[in-house]
């Protein structure tokens, strides 16, 4: 019965679409499973926007200030950062090691009318393909990688000359342990248990060193603090839990690479 077969085949597709649509709804529900990321997002985006505006000499108040820039969002997940950066005018590539995340992100971006190049690909594979970007957004990824130095060096090689990479991670302090693992995973159930491994958290000095080793010039780290009364994160000098570092590709290395 050909008819039945056709129905069976299309129902598989429909099931897949339904599944990813449900996952997209979950990723993008500000009160749902990914609530902590949604709460963090305005502070993170403020830092990313202002850092990119300063580096590329753009006006941070312009709605499309990132026009003409190519950005790679590594570990893009459901696209929580890719979508806003695309709306700000950038040409976005979102990469994630999970094909489910990529399917989810694609469905959501399409519904939002955003043209984002989502790929289920690793940083290494992008290097092999010879890709280069003006900026790389590398948020909450390094603490999940096996070899931080190798990963950051690969990412650095994806930057165009004078490009900039923004990295965020968790500090290896008792406070970060208390907040991210005990608080977020166990007490609040914000994140699935086992999401984080404290031993892999990096101190700012260690991250800076790894970035220098990768041929980049790191800037001063910026922290984020949480105000539980307002349920709001804001940028601060306190780097004891969550922090971000911007690092620029320095010309010296670019010349070395060319020679």
């Amino acid at each position, binding site marked *: 019965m050909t008819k039945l077969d056709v129905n069976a085949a299309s129902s598989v597709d429909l099931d897949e679409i339904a599944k990813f649509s449900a996952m997209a709804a979950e990723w993008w529900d500000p*009160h749902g499973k990914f609530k902590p990321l949604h709460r963090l997002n305005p502070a993170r985006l403020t830092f990313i926007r202002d850092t990119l505006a300063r580096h590329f000499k753009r006006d941070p108040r312009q*709605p499309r200030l990132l026009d003409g820039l190519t950005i790679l969002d590594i570990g893009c997940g459901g696209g929580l950062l890719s979508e806003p950066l695309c709306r700000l005018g950038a040409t976005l590539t979102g990469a994630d090691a999970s094909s489910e995340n990529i399917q989810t992100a694609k469905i959501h971006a*399409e519904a*939002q009318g955003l043209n984002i190049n989502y790929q289920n690909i690793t940083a290494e594979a992008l290097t092999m393909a010879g890709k280069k970007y003006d900026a790389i957004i590398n948020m909450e990824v390094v603490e999940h990688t096996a070899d931080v130095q190798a990963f950051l060096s690969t990412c650095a090689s994806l930057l165009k000359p004078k490009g900039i990479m923004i990295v965020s991670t968790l500090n290896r302090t008792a406070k970060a342990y208390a907040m991210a693992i005990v608080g977020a995973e166990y007490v609040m159930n914000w994140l699935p248990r086992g999401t984080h491994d404290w031993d892999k958290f990096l101190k700012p000095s260690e991250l800076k060193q790894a970035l220098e080793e990768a041929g980049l010039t790191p800037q001063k780290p910026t922290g984020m603090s949480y105000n539980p009364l307002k349920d709001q994160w804001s940028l601060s000098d306190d780097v004891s839990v969550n922090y971000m570092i911007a690092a620029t590709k320095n010309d010296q290395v670019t010349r070395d690479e060319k020679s």
Partner: protein
Amino acid sequence: MQNYDTDVAVVGGGLAGATMALAAAQAGLSVIVVDSIDPKTATDAAFDGRVSAIAFASCRMFEALGIWPALAQDAQPINDIVVTDGRVREGAAPLFLHFDHREIGDEPLGHLIENRHSRVVLIDALSSNSNIDYRAPMSITAAAPDLHGYNLTLSDGTSIRTRLAIGADGRGSRMRAWAGIKTIQWGYNQTGIVTTVHHRDDHHGIAQEYFLPSGPFAILPMTGRRASLVWTERPKLAEAILELDDAGFHDELEARFGTYLGPIEALGTRWSYPLGLQLARDYIAPRLALIADAAHGVHPIAGQGLNLGLRDVAALAQVLAETVRLGLDIGADDVLARYQQWRRFDNVSLAFIMDAMNRLFSNDFGPLRLARDLGLGLVNQVPPLRRFFMRQAGGSVGELPQLLRGEPL
């Protein structure tokens, strides 16, 4: 790929809706304004005879939006507000409350502008703004959100898909009804009679508010030795007064207005509006935000109706500006929740203060009369209290959005 026709669709192009559109456009958003009223009618003197008190903070917002110079041409500054208790034909009680703008600075407490003038200025501003597509007369025949946007069907058969819809369609808001948002409401059993009076002597920019037993009687200074009256009466009496011939109307008027500005003469049309309080339970629904009268209608006792609406505009515009500058979705639930949290408490508490004031003053019960006269006298004797009331009336209390501080977005 799904597409949007605009970032924001404002339904209702009245004073608050038009200001909302200008503020959203200043934040860099594309805006469509849909209004069911023909702009030619909307600017006609016969369409809206009311004047609006524009509080000091609201003036600063119009300045930040670049339309204050045009509005100021027909604006009468309010320098002082005098509040007294009285009875018809008896004159004012000896105890009264005097708000003098010199106590809190050099600026007037606010301005009075005829709605027909502000409508002309706002419609001009909408029509000449390249980020705004102004469609009037045009009504909405269907409205519903989807997961990522809001869909409007217009009376000409076209449709609009927007990231965010803003309901600025007044007390009887259809956008509110379509969203299934319930209201709390009650009438005051009062009708507001509105008319314009010409008087011989200069009013020196002094607004008078007499509390008569049937309700407040306000004399609002206008340009050119004119004053606008907001005259509250029980509905049946109001009806009778509205039907009097010119001589009879003049007699009733003079019995309340008095002769402190010399001989008076009623000019032209008498309008009437039923007074009532109405509060929406929610200001937001998926992909929809309600502002101004669609969200809250208050008693006109303190001249705050439009100003509360403009505070909604300033708060929502700021939330949207901050959101769009981070590239985030302006119609997302958490974004709209920030607007609701910012405005709802302020609006509800002011609505109840005005409700209580009206109930306290709209009666002739002896002890209550004595108490409120003492109260007025007391507030008058304590300068910090007086300054607090003035700042409240001027709209400078609470966490002020940028636009109300006079800063462009």
